[in-house]
Structures are given as C-alpha cells and as structure tokens.
C-alpha cells in the first residue's frame, strides 16, 4: 500500500487547504509529503488541514514530516531532506502560554495512527478533530 495524497480547498473563517492522506506514511515516502506541503506554502496556502482518515499506518518518520510541515507553515526555512533529520531544529513556537498553534490541524486519525501521535506526545502539537467537517468549522 503506497501513499496517495489528494488536495482540496475549503473555506472556513480562512481559506483552508486540505491534504488527505491515504495508505501508509513511512520512511520511503515521508519526504514527498514534506515537498507537497512546501509547494502548497509557496503557492500561498497558510492554513492546512491534514485529513488522516484513510491513513492506515504512520511510522516515526511520519512524525518528522508533521514536525517539518509545521515549520514550513510557520514560514521557517524549509528543512533540507538531504541534510537528514538531524538538520531539523526544534520549533520556535511559543508554548509557554499552553496554547496550541492553529495553522496546521489534523482530523480523522484511526487507532494505529492515533496511538503513534499519543505515545510520542506529538498530539500536543496539534488540534485533532474527529472528522473533516468539525475541523473546517474550527479554523
């Protein structure tokens, strides 16, 4: 099962770019996802919803992709995949107030993907909605 990415637009209070992932996100394809989002940012997308409903598997490299996507959507220098994961730095987000960023939000994670987000604490970086409709309403 490879990874398929499909891109939609929706309008909440802001224009939302929806990236729906289908299949398995692993070390063989996570950089493609980063590149897709880099392109979307360059084309003007500023608010991103990752729809994980049909994502059957996410490796820890998928978490690196989420981290990188967050950086990209905050206008930080896009990480260079050639330089390896070690080249990525921690996010310059201010989390002292306990608030969560809203530029990148997630929806629909199924059991296995949700457990990965929870076990690694990455879920704390994102607002996670049960489905696409409630996510769009939240932007």
């Amino acid at each position, binding site marked *: 099962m490879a990874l398929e990415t499909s891109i939609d637009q929706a309008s909440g209070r802001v224009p939302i770019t929806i990236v729906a992932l289908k299949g398995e996100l692993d070390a063989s394809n996570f950089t493609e996802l980063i590149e897709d989002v880099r392109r979307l940012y360059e084309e003007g997308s500023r608010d991103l919803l990752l729809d994980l409903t049909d994502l059957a598997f996410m490796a820890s490299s998928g978490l690196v992709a989420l981290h990188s996507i967050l950086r990209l959507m905050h206008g930080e220098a896009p990480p260079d995949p050639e330089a390896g*994961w070690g080249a990525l730095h*921690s996010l310059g987000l201010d989390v002292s107030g306990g608030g969560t960023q809203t530029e990148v939000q997630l929806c629909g994670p199924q059991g296995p993907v949700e457990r990965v987000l929870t076990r690694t604490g990455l879920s704390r970086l994102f607002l996670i909605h049960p489905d696409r409709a409630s996510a769009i309403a939240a932007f």
Partner: protein
Amino acid sequence: MSDSAERSEASARTLRVPSELGQLAALRDFLRTAADEAGVGDAGAADLVQAVDEAATNAMIHGHAGRPGWVEVDVATKDDRFVVNVRDDAPGFDPTTVQSPDLSVHPANRRPGGMGVLLARLCVDEMTYRPRPGGGNILTLVRRFERNGKEDR
C-alpha cells in the same frame, strides 16, 4: 541458545528483503498477515507492525546506511506470545542502549526524530537484542495476546 536461534532461523516463516526503504511495505504486510493468522487482534497486530517497521527502518537507514544488505523478519507463536525476530547483516548496534527522548518536554521544544526506538519499545511487551552469529544483529520483539478461543492445533 545459538542452536535454537539457528533452528528458528532455518524453519520459522521468514521474509527477507533487500535493504531498501521501498521494501518496508512488504515487511509490514507480512507481519500483519502473520499476526492476523495467529489471532493477535487488530491493536496488537498494528503495534507489532509498528515495532517491526521502526526496527527495519533503522537497520536500513542507520545500519546499512546506503550500502547493500538485507533485513529479515521471522515470526512464531509460543503459547500466548507472538515472537518476532528482526535480523540484519548491518554493523553491530544494540538499540536497547538508545536513550529515550524526554517526553515531558513539549514537542515544540524537542528536535524532530529520535522517536523510532521508543515507539518500537512502547508497542511490544519485550525487546531484547543480541548480535547475530556470523555478523549483524538480532532484535527480538514479543507481544502477549489472549488466545480467545482459538483452537490449538
């Protein structure tokens, strides 16, 4: 022990793939099928798939690091234990010595990455390492499950 390890290497159901990231999907399918057959349950099967994917990915990326090589996974059920061996012919490395990231630090203040070994560990009940006789590594992952009424045949 080396004797029984080698016997298991000889006859358990085993998938060997070349060290290429494009082969990870085949390893996951193999694990999923075997765990389903054993009656491990959906969540247990998903966790085993996750753990094996992380171990195999590390063998390919950090172990072989672009050089040719192979990764091999074998599976067996012993009573209520689903046992997976992940073998490779990469330079010796014991992942059980890797220090876990500090999960109390907010992820925004952590470096990305460094989650693979931790995730694998959290997905199984036992993780043990030994060097492979003849070179390489053997990581053994065990997940317990309830044999809910499945016949012993």
